[in-house]
């Protein structure tokens, strides 16, 4: 495959090593971490307004977390050896920690918290359903049918502790992804101690956006009214988190421009040419400034409900596009210039190839399919269900 090169690249640099799948990986883990942190707002910080999204946020985090290692697995040259990372991890490698951070977050935090949260519902469903469903829920109870008030109180307490542990774990999960890039001194586009922090805040931004959008979408699909105080609160948190994220990114940018080290000319050229569309237009323009302005207006002006909903939807979608563009610019952008700072290469994405666009599209849709299954098995609309129960005098 001929790859157009401008200037001089070291001969082994012409081909990009990390593809669109590696763009997808931090994007997906970011959604996981962000969704979990939104869920923890209700649980730990007692922000009651966001309660309607609590369970949905947890299930969203789980759906994306299940998919998170798939792009990595597909990307490996020798995927059959990936298990070696668990058996013989190299202690000095940040990447070697992936498996452990992932497993801890999946099995030590998320699954346990979801189980504790749903235990009462699972027991009720195990007793009320029939056929294969009954067996499924009976298995999910793990043999514990005790839903006495005391048991539920213990569940709640343990759940709280797990969420408290979960917050630094979510930070670790995504901060670690930033560290993977930020610690590569060979690459000035990546090498900054701000990278894990920027990754963290952008993760929160994307996670909050995706849960907000999913909540509004599921309300529409279920023909239920959207709880506006809830969405307003989420939008407020999105706005402030986004503001911090944007500030951090600008601090990094201004620092680079002012410092203007030996790599600057090369990187500056790249931003004005190869990355102009994805960085200036998509990431900063449409993906950050427009949603920030929209969200700022909703905070400052008392807009009617319909307009607020519309503004939140547009802001949410643009935010996700912007964060994806940010991941793209980091991963792909960091490989387009030569480490000699004398030339530039081109990323040619295949379509039906192992690391092409098609697997990337499939992996982007897969979390939503998993979420759909999870929502069917563990319906997150508990508030409404409990209210309905109360109305029937249960």
């Amino acid at each position: 495959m001929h790859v157009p090169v401008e200037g001089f690249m070291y001969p082994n640099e012409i081909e990009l090593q990390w593809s669109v799948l590696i763009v997808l990986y931090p994007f997906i883990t970011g959604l996981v971490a962000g969704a979990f942190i939104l869920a923890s707002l209700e649980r730990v910080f007692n922000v009651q307004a966001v309660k309607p999204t609590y369970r949905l946020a947890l299930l969203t985090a789980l759906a994306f977390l299940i998919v998170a290692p798939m792009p990595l697995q597909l990307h490996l040259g020798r995927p059959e050896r990936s298990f070696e990372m668990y058996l013989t991890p190299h202690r000095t490698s940040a990447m070697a920690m992936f498996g452990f951070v992932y497993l801890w977050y999946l099995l030590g935090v998320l699954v346990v918290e979801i189980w504790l949260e749903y235990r009462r519902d699972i027991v009720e469903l195990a007793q009320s359903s029939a056929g294969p469903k009954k067996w499924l829920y009976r298995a999910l109870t793990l043999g514990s049918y005790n839903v006495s008030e005391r048991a539920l109180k213990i569940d709640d307490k343990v759940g709280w502790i797990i969420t408290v542990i979960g917050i630094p774990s979510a930070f670790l999960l995504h901060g670690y992804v930033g560290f993977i890039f930020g610690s590569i001194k060979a690459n000035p586009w990546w090498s900054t101690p701000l990278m894990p922090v920027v990754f963290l805040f952008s993760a929160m931004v994307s996670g909050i956006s995706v849960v907000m959008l999913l909540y509004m979408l599921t309300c529409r699909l279920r023909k239920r009214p959207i709880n506006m105080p809830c969405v307003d609160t989420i939008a407020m948190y999105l706005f402030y988190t986004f503001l911090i994220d944007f500030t951090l990114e600008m601090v990094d940018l201004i620092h680079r421009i002012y410092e203007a080290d030996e790599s600057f000319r090369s990187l500056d050229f790249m931003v004005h040419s190869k990355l102009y569309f994805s960085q200036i237009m998509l990431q900063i323009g449409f993906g950050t400034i427009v949603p920030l302005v929209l969200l700022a207006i909703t905070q400052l002006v008392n807009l009617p409900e319909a307009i607020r909903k519309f503004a939140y939807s547009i802001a949410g979608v643009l935010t996700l596009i912007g964060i994806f563009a940010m991941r793209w610019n980091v991963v792909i952008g960091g490989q387009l210039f030569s480490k000699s700072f004398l030339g530039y290469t081109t990323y040619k994405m295949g379509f039906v190839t192992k690391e092409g666009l098609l697997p990337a599209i499939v992996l982007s849709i897969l979390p939503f399919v998993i979420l759909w299954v999870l929502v069917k098995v563990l319906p997150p609309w508990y508030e409404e269900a409990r209210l309905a129960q109360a109305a029937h005098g249960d």
Partner: protein
Amino acid sequence: MSMTRRHFLLLTAVAAAAWDSIIAGTPEAASTYNMTDHWYGMLMNIEKCIGCGSCVRACQLENKVPDGYFRTWVERYHIEDWTVENPTVDSPDGGKNGFVELKETGGKNFFVPKLCNHCADSPCTQVCPVGATFHTPDGVVLVDGKYCLGCRYCIQACPYGCRFLNPATNTAEKCSLCYHRITKGLTTACCENCPTGARQLVDFKNPNDPIHEFLKTHSVQVLKPYMATKAKVYYYGLDGSVR
């Protein structure tokens, strides 16, 4: 002693079993090589390099390097005048077939042979998630192709662009300093085939190696010293424009 049919059949079977060893040549003598007695590096004399590409060809033959990938390569630098920050550099096919002569426009031209720097503090070995790339006690950075996952983190971490993913094995690959040769007392394929002696394998632990005298009397540099990788490929006559 006359050969009976029984003896003949017996000998034929033994000969058949030994045939593989016979065609493989004389069996190796027991190795007396002690890894801790050596500490390898390389010395490049820029003033002697003529850009013929013999080293690149020799390396590709010796190590079966796939086309389009390089364990070693040669770059040509062209600098007009005082603009050392803007050199014009080329390395067509890694300099494998030499270089087409440039039109005389003034300025200076020189060749820079490159390979893995076998850094003592190598970022590539640091990042490998399974330790498939490692330091040998004699100072060589190697890749265990049977263990590498093909994650390519090491390729990203190398500041010198020395690594690539071998498309045949889907594992990371780089210069091994012809480890299979140097541990038998031979030099590397690139050094052996350099017609001007611009590349020399050096053993810093060998007190009789001429490198010690050379270092006392000449100014040498490593590539990108600010990367603090303790690179062990030393360059004599290296211009400040070289990246």
